[in-house]
C-alpha cells in the first residue's frame, strides 16, 4: 500500500514537473518578438537583396519574427504612413526619405535614436547624412543612402556638337549662363518651323515632381513660399523678392525664352527621360537616381551631370534615405537591431541596393575609395564625391526639409497649378501671385 502511495506521489510530481517545463517552453515560444518593417524597394534585384538581408537577420536573431512589406510605391508612401499613423498601425521599422522627416517627427511618429548611437557608429557616416536625420539636434533615423535631388544633367554629345564646355567639377554656371546655353541648344533641326530640341526642360507635373524641380529654383533665388514670422506664426512668402524672381524665371523658360515647351508642365519622369534619351531635351534638372537607370537601360546615351546653376546663391540639394523606428513600437531594442542590420551591418548589400536605386552609401570609408568613385554606374556622382565624403559642399541643402508640415501640400495644391496656369496664359503673373498669397495664408490658418 505504501509502495503504491509512493509511486503515485512520484508520478504526480513527475507530471507536475513535466507540465511546468512544457508550460515554460510555451512561454519562451510566446516571447518571440514580431517586428514589422516597410520599405520602398524599386526593382526586383533590390527586393531580392533586401530579402537576403532579412533572411540573414532572422538566422542571427532567431527570437525575432519579421513581417516585411518591401514595395510601397514612393508616390503613395506619405499617404501610407499618414494612414498608419492615424490608425495606430505604424510598422516598427520604417525606411523613408528625408522629405518625410520634419512632418512625421512633428507628429511624434519616430523614436529618438540618440541613446543607441555610439561614437564609432556616428563617425562611420558622413556628417551631412546625419544632418538629414536630425530634427532640432535629435536623431530620428539612421541614414544609409544619399543622392542629389536634383543634379543638372546634360547630353555630352549635344554639348560637343554645339561646342559647349560644361563647368569644371566644383563650379557652377549662373542661371543666366545656363539660360544662354539653353537658348543655343534650343533648335528647329529639320527646318519645319517646329522646335525639335529643347535646351532646358524641368519636369513640371504637379506632385512631388514639381516640389523637386521648382524647389531648388526657389532656394537658389533665395526665396521661400512660406516664412516664419518672429511671433512663430507662418505666412505666405509671395512678398519676398526671391520668390517672385523664382516664379518669373521659371515661367519665362516656357513663355519668354521658349527653351522649354509649355507641355513640360505635365511631364512626368518617363516623359523627361524619353525626351533626354532621344536628344529632344538637351539638359535639365533630374535626380541622380536617373543615372543608375540610364546606365543599365540606355547605355548608348552620352550624358553627364553638373552642379545646379546658381541664382542669387549657389546650392546643392541632396536627399537621403533613413531608417527610423516607430514611436508606437513595443520592441524598441529589437527594432534598433533590425535598423542597424539593414544599414551599417550589411554594407555590401547596402552598396548593391544603393546602386540599383541610384544612390551612394553614406559610409566615409566607402565613399572615399577611388574604386568606388570610378565605377561607371556612379558616374553621375563624379562632380560631388569629394564634397559628399568631406561634407565640404557650399550651401548644401536637404532637398525636402520642410519646417512646416503644410509646405508639400501648398507646393502641390496651390503653387504648381497656379504657376502652370500662368504659363498657359490663363492668369497673369500678378493675378497668380495674388491668388497664391491668399490661398497659402488660408491653408496655413486651416491647419493652425
Amino acid at each position: 500500500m505504501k509502495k503504491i502511495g509512493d509511486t503515485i506521489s512520484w508520478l504526480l510530481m513527475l507530471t507536475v514537473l513535466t507540465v511546468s517545463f512544457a508550460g515554460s517552453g510555451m512561454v519562451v515560444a510566446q516571447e518571440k518578438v514580431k517586428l514589422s518593417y516597410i520599405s520602398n524597394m524599386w526593382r526586383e534585384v533590390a527586393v531580392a537583396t533586401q530579402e537576403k538581408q532579412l533572411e540573414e537577420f532572422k538566422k542571427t536573431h532567431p527570437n525575432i519574427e519579421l513581417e516585411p512589406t518591401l514595395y510601397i510605391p514612393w508616390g503613395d508612401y506619405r499617404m501610407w504612413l499618414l494612414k498608419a499613423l492615424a490608425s495606430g498601425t505604424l510598422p516598427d521599422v520604417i525606411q523613408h526619405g528625408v522629405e518625410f522627416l520634419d512632418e512625421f517627427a512633428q507628429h511624434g511618429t519616430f523614436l529618438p535614436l540618440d541613446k543607441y548611437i555610439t561614437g564609432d557608429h556616428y563617425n562611420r557616416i558622413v556628417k551631412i547624412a546625419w544632418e538629414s536625420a536630425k530634427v532640432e539636434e535629435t536623431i530620428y533615423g539612421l541614414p544609409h543612402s544619399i543622392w542629389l535631388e536634383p543634379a543638372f544633367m546634360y547630353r555630352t554629345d549635344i554639348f560637343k556638337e554645339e561646342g559647349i564646355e560644361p563647368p569644371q567639377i566644383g563650379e557652377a554656371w549662373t542661371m543666366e549662363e545656363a539660360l544662354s546655353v539653353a537658348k543655343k541648344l534650343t533648335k528647329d533641326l529639320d527646318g519645319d518651323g517646329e522646335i525639335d530640341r529643347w535646351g532646358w526642360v524641368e519636369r513640371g507635373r504637379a506632385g512631388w515632381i514639381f516640389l523637386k524641380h521648382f524647389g531648388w529654383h526657389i532656394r537658389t533665388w533665395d526665396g521661400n513660399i512660406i516664412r516664419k514670422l518672429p511671433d512663430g506664426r507662418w505666412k505666405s512668402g509671395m512678398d519676398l523678392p526671391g520668390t517672385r524672381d523664382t516664379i518669373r524665371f521659371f515661367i519665362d523658360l516656357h513663355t519668354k525664352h521658349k527653351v522649354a515647351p509649355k507641355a513640360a508642365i505635365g511631364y512626368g519622369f518617363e516623359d523627361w527621360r524619353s525626351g533626354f534619351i532621344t536628344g529632344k531635351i538637351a539638359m535639365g534638372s533630374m535626380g541622380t537616381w536617373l543615372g543608375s537607370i540610364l546606365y543599365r537601360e540606355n547605355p548608348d546615351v552620352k550624358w553627364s551631370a553638373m552642379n545646379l546653376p546658381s541664382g542669387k546663391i549657389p546650392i546643392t540639394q541632396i536627399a537621403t534615405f533613413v531608417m527610423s523606428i516607430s514611436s508606437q513600437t513595443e520592441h524598441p531594442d529589437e527594432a534598433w537591431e533590425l535598423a542597424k542590420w539593414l544599414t551599417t551591418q550589411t554594407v555590401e548589400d547596402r552598396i548593391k541596393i544603393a546602386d540599383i536605386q541610384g544612390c551612394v552609401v553614406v559610409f566615409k570609408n566607402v565613399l572615399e575609395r577611388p574604386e568606388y568613385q570610378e565605377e561607371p554606374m556612379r558616374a553621375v556622382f563624379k562632380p560631388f564625391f569629394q564634397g559628399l565624403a568631406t561634407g565640404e559642399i557650399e550651401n548644401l541643402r536637404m532637398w525636402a526639409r520642410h519646417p512646416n508640415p503644410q509646405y508639400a501640400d501648398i507646393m502641390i495644391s496651390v503653387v504648381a497649378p497656379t504657376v502652370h496656369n500662368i504659363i498657359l496664359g490663363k492668369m497673369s503673373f500678378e493675378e497668380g501671385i495674388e491668388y497664391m498669397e491668399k490661398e497659402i495664408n488660408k491653408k496655413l490658418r486651416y491647419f493652425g
Partner: protein
Amino acid sequence: MSFHRYPLLGVDKPFIGLKNYIALLSEDPYFWGVVKNTFLWTFVSIGISFIFSMGVALLLNQELKGRNVFRALSILPWAIPPVVASLTWTMFYDPFLGLFNHILYKLGIIRSYHAWLSEEATVLPSLVLVVFWKYNAFLIIGLLAGLQGIPMQLYESAKIDGANTVQRFFYITLPQLKPIILVLLTLQIIWRFNHFDIVWVMTRGGPAHLSHLIATYAYQHAFISLEFGYASAIGVIGMVFLGIFIVILVGRMK
C-alpha cells in the same frame, strides 16, 4: 464631415456649418472647371460609346463568319485591369517615343509630336479615348443581349409593310431596346461620373487641374491636402448632381 474642418491628424475638428460648401461653390477657382470636365467626360464619352457600341452590337447580331471571335475580342479591353490599361496608354501617349504620335505622324495627321497628356487642348480628349476603348464592352454586350431578345416577326412584318433598314431601326429596334438602353445609360452615367482610376494614374488631374474630375479632385483634397471636410463637401455636391440625373432616368423607366 463636410460640415467640419477635418484635418486627418488634428484633434480639433470644429463644426463650421456651410463654410466648406460656400468656399467650394463661390471661392474655389477650379471647382466649376472640374464639374464641367466631369460632365464632358461623362456625356461625351457615353454618347460616343453608345453610338459605337450600337453599331458593333448590330454587326455582331448578324450571321457573320468568325462572329464569336469578334465577340470575344470586343470584351478584351474590359478584361484588362484599369491600372494596367492606364499605364500602357501613358506609354502609348509618350510625347517623344509614344506609338500614338508615331502612327499619326506617319499617316500625315499631325505635323509634329504632341504631349497628349500635358497639353491643354488634348489632355481630356486623350483620357476620354482611353475610357471609350476600355468600357465599350459592357454596352456592346448589353445591347447585343437586347437585340437578340427582339422577335424576328416584328422585322418580317415591317419588311412586308415596306419599311427600309433605317425605318426598321428607328421604329422597331430602338423602341424595343428602350428599357435596356435606359438601364445601361443609368449604370454608365453612375460609373463614368464617379470615375477615378484612369485619370489619377495617367495625369493626377493635371496639368494645372485641367483633367480633374469630381472624384479625383475630392481625392486630392482628402489624401494630398488632408482636408477631409472640404473633400467630403466635394463628394456631396457630386452626389447631388448625379442624383438629379438618376432621378430623371429612373423616372423615364416607369
